């Protein structure tokens, strides 16, 4: 199986471990990730907050390159995924927009392919059975709060993926890996990622609420499928602890890091040693390193 792969800017920098894990896991599952040559930034929030045309055109360029190969696009970043879907929708519903986009990108994007997020890829396209077949090590002892964040499932009219209030697909994957998934109500609460730099105090409040609920629900770690959520939850965790006078020291993993661990890859191969919340002791305690 072959699928176009759009890492997005984070996976080349702050989310490099997600990139490494995706590649190893895909290979093990017999999937060829065809990285879109010379892909550009999706524009993230700054683009759709600044112009109605810009975000669609930026995403259409990447989608068009994949469409020329007849491929759908796996977008492991939930924000990129969401923006790509918006561009697909715009091109399919707004003739005028499509013409202007194609003029700008110098290609003929027809909107025949779509974007797929990482959980959807593992759960809907690969399937739990094929994942289970590759497991070498059960992740027993992990108590995982699956954190889907906003853009993987919302708005549902756009993503058409899982349930926007209580999604289950990531939980099913984590269950299959042998870990325990906890029941908690903040699966799709916002971490405030977009304001991380311009209004840091907002994200300290929002991430504090997420961590305190995770702890109260009995989790010892979080798992996400978005490099922005992962970064936001780990990078400012110390600042959050200081601001609210609490101690979490809670690792936040990407879904493919956990899948990779259960497939027998070492934390180093998967880049798990590159986290902002040091997880050496945690992984040792859980006999995963």
């Amino acid at each position: 199986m072959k699928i176009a792969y759009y890492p997005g800017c984070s996976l080349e920098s702050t989310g490099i471990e997600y990139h490494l894990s995706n590649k190893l896991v895909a290979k093990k599952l017999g999937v060829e990730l065809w990285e879109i040559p010379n892909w550009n930034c999706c524009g993230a929030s700054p683009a759709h907050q600044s112009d109605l045309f810009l975000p669609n055109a930026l995403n259409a360029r990447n989608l068009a390159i994949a469409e020329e190969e007849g491929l759908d696009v796996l977008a492991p970043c939930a924000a990129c995924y969401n923006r790509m879907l918006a561009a697909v929708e715009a091109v399919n519903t707004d003739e005028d927009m499509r013409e202007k986009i194609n003029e700008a990108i110098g290609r003929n994007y027809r909107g025949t392919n779509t974007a797929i997020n990482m959980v959807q890829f593992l759960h809907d396209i690969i399937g739990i059975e094929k994942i289970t077949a590759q497991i070498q090590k059960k992740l027993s002892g992990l108590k995982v709060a699956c954190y889907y964040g906003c853009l993987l499932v919302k708005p549902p009219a756009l993503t058409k993926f899982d349930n926007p209030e209580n999604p289950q697909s990531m939980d099913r994957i984590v269950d299959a890996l042998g870990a325990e998934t906890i029941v908690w109500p903040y699966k799709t609460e916002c971490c405030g990622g977009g304001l991380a730099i311009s209004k840091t105090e907002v994200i300290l409040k929002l991430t504090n609420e997420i961590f305190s609920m995770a702890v109260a629900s009995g989790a010892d770690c979080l798992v996400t499928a978005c490099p922005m959520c992962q970064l936001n939850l780990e990078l400012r965790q110390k600042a959050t602890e200081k601001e609210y006078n609490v101690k979490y020291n809670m690792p936040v993993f990407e879904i493919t890091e956990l899948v990779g661990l259960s497939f027998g890859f070492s934390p180093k191969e998967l880049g798990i040693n590159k986290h902002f919340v040091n997880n050496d002791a945690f992984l040792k305690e859980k006999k995963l390193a």
Partner: protein
Amino acid sequence: MEQVVMNTALKASEPMLSEIEQKSHVDVKKCYQCGTCAAGCPVSYTSDYSPRQVVKMLQAGLVDEVYKSHMIWLCVGCGNCVTRCPRNLNIPHLHDTLRILSKEKGYPCAEKNVDIFNDSFLKTVEYTGRLYEAGLTMLYNTRSRNFMAGMDVAPGMFMLGKISPFPHLIKGRKEVANIFKKMREMKGAK
């Protein structure tokens, strides 16, 4: 807030309201003010108005006040409101549209740093094709005069080899620059 005569405000704002509706494809008249959007909004605690109030103000023709409000700049686009709205109003997209229009019309921006961040981010994309984090930090910090922004976490980023001091220049960056050029042409054509 100063006193306003409601029917005069509504009448005077009609052209502006129809422009907002035409660009956002959101019909604010559909809203019956249940407040579900405000209840689920992660940023309304720090905003002057909640999303429900923004919509109410538009219904009442208080367009100027909306264009100057914090909410249109604080909205993170999480999608809670549109997910739960019984009238299916795409409020994040409405906020985006209001933000864009307010900037085009030269209204004072209530959250300058958000605007500077967005602008700095897009500058790096325009010139390199991708986000250039170190460049974004330099631009944002100098333009917002928050010289130490991100400096608490920057050393860790470099230590872990996550942030490069150099941009990643893609081959198709001329195509990307063209997209920005086209955007400006379209803005100018209006």
